[in-house]
């Protein structure tokens, strides 16, 4: 697991730097290439190695963490988005951000319920 952590950090740095550079250069191609290559390297490493990368405890932890993160995240962006939209006369520059956040909150809710339905069925409903 230690090796995987090191490799993961290296890949993250690599992808992050290339994406930042390509955004400055105003071209998408390097960014997408870097992300794809990073994903491929990560995938290949996972397949080739013998170390256990995750066990049921880690999976449980990440799922519980996702749940809390999702609830806090959705409430925050819903509120912030709504605030920006309401203040569109005082701060017209942020209106687009407000709509983006509100749509994201809505997409999150819709996506969550779709997956809830799927897992509900999977676990015997």
């Amino acid at each position: 697991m230690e090796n995987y952590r090191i490799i993961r950090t290296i890949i993250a740095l690599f992808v992050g730097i290339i994406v930042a550079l390509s955004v400055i250069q105003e071209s998408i191609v390097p960014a997408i290439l870097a992300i794809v290559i990073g994903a491929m390297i990560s995938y290949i490493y996972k397949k080739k190695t013998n170390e256990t990368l995750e066990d049921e405890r880690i999976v449980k932890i990440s799922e519980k963490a996702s749940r809390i993160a999702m609830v806090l995240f959705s409430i925050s962006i819903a509120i912030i988005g709504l605030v920006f939209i309401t203040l569109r006369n005082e701060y017209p520059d942020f209106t687009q951000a407000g709509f983006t956040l509100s749509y994201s909150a809505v997409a999150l809710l819709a996506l969550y319920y779709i997956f809830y339905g799927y897992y509900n069925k999977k676990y015997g409903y």
Partner: protein
Amino acid sequence: MKNNLKVYRAMQDLTQEELAKELGVTRQTIIAIEKDKYDPSLILAFKIARFFETSIEDIFIYQGD
């Protein structure tokens, strides 16, 4: 996981609803367990075994990976 929950439940003449209430879970969970679609947590498995005054291995049949 395969299990005999339905059998034990029938032996005591309980509905899924009644068993669920006794164990503190939803009716859907009992249904899901009996359909082999949901594996209960260790705590719930012990509760079930204790409720039917038997061992976990009598109710749940572990068949390996």
